[in-house]
Structure formats: C-alpha cells, structure tokens
C-alpha cells in the first residue's frame, strides 16, 4: 500500500505534479527523472493492452527504446483499433496559419473546453508535445492534406478561434493509426514487440502490490493464458458502449479498465461522457450502432430547425421537405444563441442546443429527434467541387446509410454518445493508483476535463504513447532492473485465472432465455434516458434502481450458446456486458454526486436562466475518484482537488 500512502493525504489525492512554473514543469521533470540504460532495457518486459493510437504508439516507441514489449488486441490485426474511425483531425499548436495560436492558447482552449475540470499541468504538457506529434507523423509518411505550395493545410474545429487542426481527408484517425501501426510493425519485425491478436485481457495480476501481469483469453481457442511483465499499460479506450448505441466500434469495451478498478485502480469522473452533436439519427429498433458525421462538417455546414412548429410537424408527417422551408423560416439556433462561435461551439453546447430545440417540438425526421446540417449555403459560396473535395467521403457515407443525397437535401443529425472523458485515474506520470500499472489514451481520465474538444483525442492518444509514457515509465522501471522475470506459475497468476474461470463457468451455467444483446439494449435505454444529455437527481436514482434490476436479470436470465473453450462471440459479449453494468452504475453514482453542470455533465437542476451549464466551483472543483471496496459494496469516494494556479476560472462563454 506504499503507493496509496504516497498519493493520499486523508481522502485527498495528490497527483505528483512537478514543481515550477507551468511552462517548465515537463522540462524539469524530464531533466530530473530516472532513466534505464540500454543494456537493462532488454531485461524489462512491458505489457501494453490495446493497439489504438495510444497503445500502438506506446508499444512501438517502447520497443524502439529497447524494452521487451508484449502487445495485445482483440481484433484480428492491430490496425483495426477504433482510433481508426476518427475522422476530422488532430490539433497542434504549430501556428502555421499565423492566426494567433500558441502552446498556451491550445492549453487554455482545452482547459476552458473541458469546463475547468482538467488538470492544468497535464493539459499544458499535452499542448507542449502536440507539435512533435505532427512532425513525427509527417516523418512516418502520414499523408496530411496540403496546400498548393506544398505546406500543410489546417481546418477549424469547435471551441477554438484558430485553425489548428491537421487532417487527412475525413480519415485522419485512420492515417495516424496506420502510421503508428507501421511503426509497430517495424518493431514486431525486429522482435522487440511480440504481438498477440484476438486476445482479450480478462484480469490484471498483482504481485506484492505491483501490477505484474495479465490473464488473457485467446479468443480463437477460448483458453485462458498467463503473461508476466515488469509493468502493465492499459490503452483500451473508453466505455461509451455502456449506452449500447454509441459511435464506438462493436467490440469497444470498458472491461480492462474495470478489471484495474476491481484490483485497486481508482476510476475517475465516470460520469463525464461526451455526446457528439453530429451523428446520423437512430432509425430502427434493430440498430446496432450510431455513425458519426465528422465535426469538421460544422466548418461549412449550417445547423437549423424550422422556426415554425407547424413546419416541423409537416416535415415529421412527411408532408413537407426541408428544401420547402424558405431561409426566413429557418432557425439557425447555434448562430442565434452563440454569435461569436456560431456553428463551431464545443460539442456539449451544440448537443444540448439540439436537444433543447427537439424537446421544444422543433425536431425533424419522423421521430422528431433530428436537426438539419445544411450545405446549401456552402455550395452557393464555394461551389460543389470545393465542398466535395473537403467532405466527399463523408457525404458518400451519409448517402449509403440514409439513402439521401446531402448535396441536394440537408443532412439530418442528432447527438449520440461518442467519447468518455472519465476513466482510470492517473498521476502526472500516467501511473494509476496501482504501482506499475499505467493507463493511456481515452482509457485514462487526465486531459479533457468535463468535455473534450474536437480533434483532441488523437492528439492525446499519440501524446501519451509517443512522447509521455516512454519517459515516465522509465522513472518507474529504473529501480526494477534487479527484479527478475516473474514465473507465471506463481500463485497470484493461478488465483487470478481461477477467478476468471469461475466467472465464465457461472455465466455458462445460467442458460436462461435472454440474449446478451437484448439485456445490453435495455441497459442502453436506461443510460440514455437517465444518464444521458440531461440528468436529474430523481432520474439518476431511478437509473441506479433499474441498473440493479438489469444486473439481476443478466446474472439469472442470460443465455450463452456454445462452449467456453471455443471461439464464442456471445461469451465475449457477456463478459463485457457484465462490466458495462458495473460501469453504468458507477456513472450514475458519480453523476448523482456531482451537483453541478459542467461540460458533458448537465444536471437540469443547475443551469443559468438561458439554459447554460452552471458550475459549482466552490463545491465540485475536484476529480471524483472511486475506490472499489468489494462486490456489492458501495465504492469509496476520494477527491483530487483541482487548484487552478495559472488560469482564472470563468464561466464558459461562446456568445461573444
């Protein structure tokens, strides 16, 4: 428990933030941290779970340094991690556009965008390394968009008044991930990284208080296997699929994070989930996932609903088309409410504004749960060719799904769960409250506060993997060079494996009548209704009750066909759903605790007369960290105070 003693003073957490002025903290840290010499690196094993931007970049960089890396992913290839689906771009403070950008401004925008619920020192470091990411990616051959002069192009994203977003068509995540995957492939070829595809981490192994290995399930044979290492890194993404319908990939899950939580890692700010304003609306009960339309579309698209209720009603009934509504009868509600940022307000603000209009009866689509994103004006201003060059692939994707041509009729969009800012708590070194367990990318909680700005997820994933973890993990490993490799025959591995075996047996024996998906859908509906865009104390209490019932249903009525020691997709889904139920409860509990509105967390009781989020800085300027206390017991709340030393907290204002 030395680690906990180091971090906790009473119930108050310290994050080991280096001394000194904001701009010098990271430099000072690097100057004084411990390093591992090249000959010793070979003797140290590091497990990296996940091959998204964070996991792949970390595994590749650690391999390059000479560590021996074991890298795991659940897909058939590391290149398929869900980072690949990120569309719009990646932020960096290059100021290539000469429009007033700087490291400080990127830092400030991120802190403000996160509604003052992120840690200053981490965010500053993120902004600081952002420029190196772009340099790195260009050197790897990432084909970013360029101007005719041959230099890099930029676009604008929500929550910023500068153009600092680098992009590769509408496939930026894909290109960055393929860059990291290439670097990873090179290390696999060299033998520094051993890759395990179609393996899923099912538990964390702790030896003498330190993370020393994992139990993983071979998804093809169904066998459990043991892996030991000197340190474990989790980069398994977010838990947005708790909502069943989200923009996450089908297999994205929060299980690795929850396993860490059960073994003592604190879960921070679980209620901070991002609802993305521009997704294709839900179309039927058979729907399996929601598709995002890049935020970059808000650069040139204008968002509106009809001004007159009778028009909205006529559209819903199929009697009128959006193109029948003249300009003067269109309510460009974002431009109306937020003249300074207009259609480029941050995601949380745009999502709530859409919900407000739909709740007021102005929504479109047969369901009334959609607003328009219109390119008519951009086509008039720029010509169809320019719009096609910028967004062609997104328009094509929309047309394939919805069967409507967005060049001729406005797109319909609606908010959907997209990203989770909350996650495993980490200190400045990205180390969790378990010694030797690190957490990177979306899986940790660190940089985005209560709301993430567009194009910042890619930045954070790669910052953690390329430029932060490869330094900070050495500070931990430096005194581990005398520790010999652990045998997986140790009792700690046997115990962890037995616990997983028992859990799988218990699941397989239920043989009830409900499919995993049917229960997951039920959980998703509860989450969306009560823990979604608008939350109330009463609703959250209802959610907690309903989640309890869902847990009971799951553990008594789920049906899993097939055998456990075989490729068994239903069993995989069941194991993940068991964890989503726990995460859902944790989200509701955290949302109930946080009696304020900030960023993506909107408690209806706390809003300004204009309907904007109302923070309660005097009471909730802290990171809420939940410590697992055992099955069926209430977790313990610990707090990391957010003292703003360098930035003055203000009410976010995107109006002027």
């Amino acid at each position: 428990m030395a680690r906990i003693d180091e971090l906790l003073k009473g119930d108050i957490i310290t994050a080991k933030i280096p001394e000194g002025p904001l701009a010098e903290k990271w430099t000072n840290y690097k100057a004084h941290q411990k390093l591992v010499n090249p000959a010793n690196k070979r003797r140290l094993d590091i497990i990296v779970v996940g091959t998204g931007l964070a996991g792949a970049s970390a595994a590749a960089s650690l391999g390059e340094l000479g560590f021996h890396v074991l890298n795991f992913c659940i897909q058939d290839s590391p290149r398929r991690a869900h980072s690949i689906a990120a569309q719009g771009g990646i932020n960096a403070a290059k100021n290539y556009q000469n429009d007033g950008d700087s490291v400080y401004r990127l830092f400030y925008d991120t802190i403000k965008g996160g509604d003052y619920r992120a840690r200053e020192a981490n965010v500053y470091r993120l902004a600081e390394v952002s420029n190196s990411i772009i340099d790195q990616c260009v050197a790897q051959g990432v084909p970013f968009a360029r101007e005719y002069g041959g230099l890099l192009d930029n676009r604008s994203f929500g929550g910023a008044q500068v153009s600092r977003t680098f992009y590769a068509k509408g496939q930026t995540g894909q290109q960055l991930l393929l860059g990291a995957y290439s670097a990873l492939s090179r290390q696999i070829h060299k033998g520094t990284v051993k890759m395990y595809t179609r393996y899923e981490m099912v538990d964390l192994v702790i030896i003498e208080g330190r993370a020393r290995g994992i139990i993983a399930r071979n998804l093809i044979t169904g066998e459990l296997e043991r892996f030991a290492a000197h340190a474990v890194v989790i980069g398994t993404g977010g838990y947005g699929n708790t909502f069943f319908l989200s923009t996450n990939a089908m297999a994205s899950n929060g299980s690795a994070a929850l396993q860490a939580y059960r073994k003592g890692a604190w879960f921070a700010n679980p209620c901070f989930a991002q609802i993305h304003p521009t997704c294709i609306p839900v179309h039927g009960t058979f729907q399996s996932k929601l598709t995002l339309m890049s935020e970059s579309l808000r650069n040139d698209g204008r968002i509106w609903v009809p001004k007159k209720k009778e028009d909205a009603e006529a559209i819903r009934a199929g009697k009128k088309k959006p193109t029948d509504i003249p300009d003067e009868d269109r309510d460009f509600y974002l431009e109306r409410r937020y003249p300074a940022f207009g259609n480029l307000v941050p995601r949380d603000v745009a999502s709530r504004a859409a919900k407000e209009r739909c709740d007021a009866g102005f929504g479109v689509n047969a369901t009334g749960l959609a607003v328009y994103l219109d390119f008519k004006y951009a086509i008039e201003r720029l010509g169809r060719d320019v719009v096609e060059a910028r967004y062609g692939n997104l328009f094509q994707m929309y047309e394939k799904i919805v069967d409507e041509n967005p060049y001729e009729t406005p797109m319909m969009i609606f908010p959907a769960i997209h990203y989770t800012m909350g996650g495993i708590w980490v200190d400045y070194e990205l180390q969790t409250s378990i010694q030797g367990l690190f957490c990177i990318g979306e899986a940790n909680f660190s940089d985005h506060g209560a709301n993430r700005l567009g194009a910042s997820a890619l930045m954070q994933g790669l910052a953690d993997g390329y430029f932060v973890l490869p330094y900070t993990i050495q500070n931990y490993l430096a005194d581990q060079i005398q520790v010999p490799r652990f045998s997986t025959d140790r009792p700690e591995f046997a115990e962890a494996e037995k616990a997983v075996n028992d859990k799988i047996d218990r699941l397989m024996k239920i043989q009830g009548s409900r499919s995993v998906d049917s229960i997951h859908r039920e959980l998703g509906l509860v989450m969306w209704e009560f823990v979604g865009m608008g939350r109330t104390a009463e609703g959250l209490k209802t959610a907690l009750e309903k989640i309890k019932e869902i847990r009971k249903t799951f553990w008594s009525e789920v049906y899993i066909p097939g055998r456990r020691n075989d490729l068994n997709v239903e069993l995989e889904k069941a194991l993940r759903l068991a964890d989503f139920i726990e995460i859902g409860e944790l989200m509701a509990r955290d949302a109930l605790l946080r009696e304020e509105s900030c960023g993506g967390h909107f408690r209806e009781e706390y809003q300004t007369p204009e309907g904007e989020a109302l923070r309660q800085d005097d009471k909730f300027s802290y990171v809420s960290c939940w410590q697992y206390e055992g099955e069926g017991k209430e977790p313990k709340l610990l707090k990391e105070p957010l003292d703003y030393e360098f930035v003055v907290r203000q009410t976010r204002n995107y109006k002027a």
Partner: protein
Amino acid sequence: MDKTINIKLKVWRQAGPKAKGAFETYELNNISTDSSFLEMLDVLNEKLISEHKEPVAFDHDCREGICGMCSLYINGHPHGPDSGVTTCQLHMRKFHDGETITIEPWRSHAFPVIKDLMVDRRAYDKIMQAGGYISVNTGGMPDANAIPIAKKAADEAMDAASCIGCGACAAACKNGSAMLFVAAKVSQFALLPQGKVEAARRVKAMLGKMDELGFGNCTNTGACAAECPKNVSLSNIARLNREFICAKLKD
C-alpha cells in the same frame, strides 16, 4: 420508409479451421430495408440464439466502413453487390423481396477459415512487418513543414493510403494475389519524399514476403480494384511494378 422484405440466406457454416463446412439455409422475414447487412445478420443471430442454436460467427467492428474487419463474399462479390462500400455499409435496400442471398467467407488460400465466416488475415500483417513502414524512431524529427510536398503527390499518396486492409482484393483475385494491398502501401510511401529513402528495400521486402506467404501473382485482371471497397486504383500496381524494376536494376 420502413419498407420490409423477406429473404432466404445460404450461409457457410464451419465449426473450425479443420472441420468440414457446408451451407445452411435460413429464412428471415420482415427485414427493414433501412438496416445494414450486418444488422440483418444480427437479427439472424438473435433468432438462432432464441432457438438455442449457435449464432453465425462473422468479423465486424467499427461498422463505419473504415476498420477493415468485416469481410464476406455476398452473392459472389466481396463486400456484396454495391460498389465502393464494405459489408457493414451495405444496406438491405440493395436486395429485393424473396431474394436468396449466398454468404461465404473470403475465398483465399492465404486467409484460412477460423470459424463460419471468420478468416485469418494475419498474412497481411506479416507483409506489413516485412517493410510497410518508413524506418524512423520516435522523436527528433524535422519540422513538419521542412519539406514541401506537391499537393498532387500528397493527394495521390492519400488515395493509396486509404486501403483498409480488409483482404477483398486477394479474395477477389483468381490468382489469390495481394498485389493491390502491397501496391497501395508501396505507392503511398514512394510518392512521398520521406518514403523514397528506402523505397527499393521496401518494395523487394514486401513482395518477397507476399510470395513467401503463398499469395499468387498478378495477371492484371483488375478484379481487385473492381471489388475494392475503397476504390484503390489499379494504377498503384503499375507504380509498384515500376518501383520493383527500378529496385532490381539497382541491385
């Protein structure tokens, strides 16, 4: 809106890599034409589960057409009859009421079946590991704008780089060749100054690995590009051949 169709499915079922496979026939009614092909398979699986039968195993993940995880030969075409889409973006409105739809796994010697419609595509990873990268370590890079790159070259590199590694090209090819996949990566790097430095080494290593893994050779039938869900152009193969000849001449 909300049109539904009734369909008959002929699905390849195979318990494991060495098991003997066979087609099973299933009937599905009231499938919404707004649903995606994979959502239709979800409906089938829910039905099978409710009858306490084993669901059909198939690969899928992002369901946005970008991860490259989904596969399937549908009515004789990789990713089905629609052009420029992956199976996850194929919608049931492309099929008609009463149609029989045949669903098979990738047909390729280099992609053996794992179970039902799932195949092992690690061969593509191995080709990438042989040379699909620019050999730079993390850190110490020149400024991203230090080397201007002509927009045309950057755009062409991007088009080549849009390959999702799904395997449709090799599955479509009568020779089982992975040329389009290799060509896409070789072209992306050959078009960029950063990639030129080790271009010769790369093209030889990747092609060598492709041969070693049992992929066939290219006879320019063009089936790969015709079936590619990302419309990766055949001209990349011409560039690959040019790169290869230049590399060999230098030897």
